[in-house]
């Protein structure tokens, strides 16, 4: 049935070994991108450049400012003298945040009244602005709790019983809410997607362009033998790539891996089959490498955005949410994050694994069927 598969594989590996750049192309970009993502892909906001305008000059206002200085989340870059300075700082991008303490701030607090604090945020980067505002409200609430305590200790006579709800947070699976733990498993999926889809599509289109595809199709070789010959090497390369970048994640970035490596192997295999199927499918629509490149560009970016890698699927419009169901990366991300961080197994993950298997099956079947047609 597959008696011509060995010679296809021998040919592929000889070509691969002879390609001096192959090892470079297959390994180095994966490592570099993994390192770049590992260090740079984070939602954590720190060292936000901040301008401060203190129009009150009281002990309370100085104390509040010192709270900002004390944290590494904010860098006070300018102690402004008037509103004009503040406007200039924000306009020029010298500061993203401006804290303005108006006159009377300290006195109102001492009198036990609430005092307004003005915060100006550059909302251009809405994400940073939102997160920075969150930090500010934490600082302010800590500050006001301290002030309330001080006021209470000064005037014990008027102390009223305080009723408060203290929120005690213990996030599961990632106690410190490390972004890296969230991102690195995701990066493994996106890098593999980019790598495998383009490698597969290009490998087949290259044979089409060189005329070797037509040549061996007039031989008794079966499309299945040819397709397996082209995909098995990339399947193995994909497994190697996943193992390599996972190791970087685990040993270099110390992302915990508490799940079962066999579940990981199963999901990596299913995911690779789905991405190989996609690459194969793109190749059946491409006569030239340029077309393959354009198609690759057209498909891979949306797959990456609509996967839950960075943007929550639940916040997307319904129509796009439907699209995510045919995205193998969506399922891969669910499973890999669960395997890395939660350590859950097949009992929990079978629906996502089955969806990936189904996608792989459909894509491989369609592309094998289309493959014959695309030869005419």
């Amino acid at each position, binding site marked *: 049935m597959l008696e011509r598969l060995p*010679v296809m594989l021998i040919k592929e590996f000889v070509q691969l070994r002879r390609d001096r750049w192959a090892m470079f192309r297959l390994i180095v970009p994966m490592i570099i991108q993994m390192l770049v993502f590992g260090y740079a892909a984070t939602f954590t906001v720190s060292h936000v450049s901040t301008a401060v305008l203190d129009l009150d000059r009281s002990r309370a206002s100085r104390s509040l400012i010192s709270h900002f200085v004390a944290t590494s989340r904010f860098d006070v870059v300018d102690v402004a003298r008037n509103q004009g300075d503040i406007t200039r700082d924000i306009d020029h991008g010298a500061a993203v945040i401006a804290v303005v303490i108006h006159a009377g701030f300290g006195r109102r607090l001492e009198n036990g009244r609430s005092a307004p604090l003005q915060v100006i945020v550059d909302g251009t980067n809405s994400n940073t602005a939102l997160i920075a505002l969150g930090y500010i409200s934490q600082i302010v609430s800590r500050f006001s709790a301290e002030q309330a305590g001080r006021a209470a200790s000064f005037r014990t006579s008027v102390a009223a019983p305080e009723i408060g709800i203290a929120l005690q947070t213990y996030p599961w699976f990632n106690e410190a809410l490390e972004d890296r733990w969230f991102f690195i498993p995701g990066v493994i999926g996106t890098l593999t997607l980019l790598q495998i889809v383009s490698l597969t599509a290009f490998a087949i289109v290259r044979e089409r362009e060189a005329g070797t595809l037509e040549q061996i199709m007039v031989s008794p070789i079966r499309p299945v033998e040819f397709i397996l010959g082209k995909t098995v090497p990339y399947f193995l390369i994909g497994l190697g790539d996943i193992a390599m970048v996972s190791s970087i994640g685990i040993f270099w970035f110390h992302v915990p891996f508490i799940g079962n490596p066999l579940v990981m192997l199963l999901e990596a295999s299913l995911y690779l089959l789905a991405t190989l199927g996609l690459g194969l499918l793109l190749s059946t629509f491409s006569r030239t490498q340029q077309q393959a490149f354009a198609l690759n560009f057209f498909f891979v970016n949306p797959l990456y955005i609509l996967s839950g890698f960075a943007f929550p699927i639940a916040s997307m419009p319904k129509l796009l949410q439907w699209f995510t169901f045919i995205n193998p990366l969506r399922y891969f991300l669910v499973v890999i994050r669960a395997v890395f961080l939660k350590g859950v197994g097949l009992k929990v993950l079978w629906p996502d694994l089955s969806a990936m298997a189904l996608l792989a099956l459909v894509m491989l079947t369609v592309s094998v069927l289309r493959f014959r047609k695309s030869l005419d």
Partner: protein
Amino acid sequence: MNDIAIRAEGLTKNFGPVSAVRDVDLAVYRGEIFGLVGPDGAGKTTIMRMLSGVLPPDAGRIFVDGVDAVADPEGARLRLSYMPQRFGLYEDLTVAENIFFYGEIFSVPRGERIARSGELLEAAGLLPFRRRMAGQLSGGMKQKLGLVCALIHTPRVLLLDEPTTGVDPVSRRDFWAILYNLRESGVTILLSTAYMDEAERCSRLALLHNGEVRRCDTPAGIKKAMPGALLAIISADPRRLREAVSGQPGVLGVLLMGDRLHVRVDDPARRIPELRLLLAGRGVTGAVIQAAEPGIEDVFVALLGEMA
């Protein structure tokens, strides 16, 4: 039926609204070198691709070595070998590796592959280049390597699409020597060519035009079928000569062939004196008019000119 290696009946192929091949019947006998001749776009490549099983025909039947190639393309493929205009060689594999690969996908036993590739490489003059990358061969050597790969499984039928286009004369001679040897060993060869000297070497020819076979005969038979008779006029200024002769009564066609002009006339006995007079009147001196044997090119141009 037994001595027919390739039979096509009513072969038809349309590409959208374009009719590429229309109702073509061909019968190629065992041991023939059969030539398909025609201008670009006549349908030569489309016929080759249908015969090789790459392209399914819209209508018609194909038998290769007795096997119904439309119903059983895999069975037909084992018996034939198809070499497109540009043979698909792996340029990053060596000569020997390409042969190994094509031998293996045709399931040629190892011993046979080694013996046969030695023979074929020898005949093609490629033996010293066995370890060279296919991408570093010259155009002619690539074509010969393509032929070696196409022949490694000892096909009964060989389909060659313009195999010598762009190949240097020495390589072309080697190439034809291999083809003659193959014919000796009983291989049937169907080739298309744009070279008229190659057409003359074929056992039989089919003249194709607009997807139809216009004439199918031996080269000698085709030459006899040329309407009129051929005269050659030799002159120092053949271009001026052509101007003078074109459009004269009884002149059916004019073809410039290097230093001579081939003029096809309806009745040579009557037209030779007329032409002499005409040339003398135009001041063309020293022109020699004689009867000439038509070549395939003359017949080709005459027949196609008539159809147009």
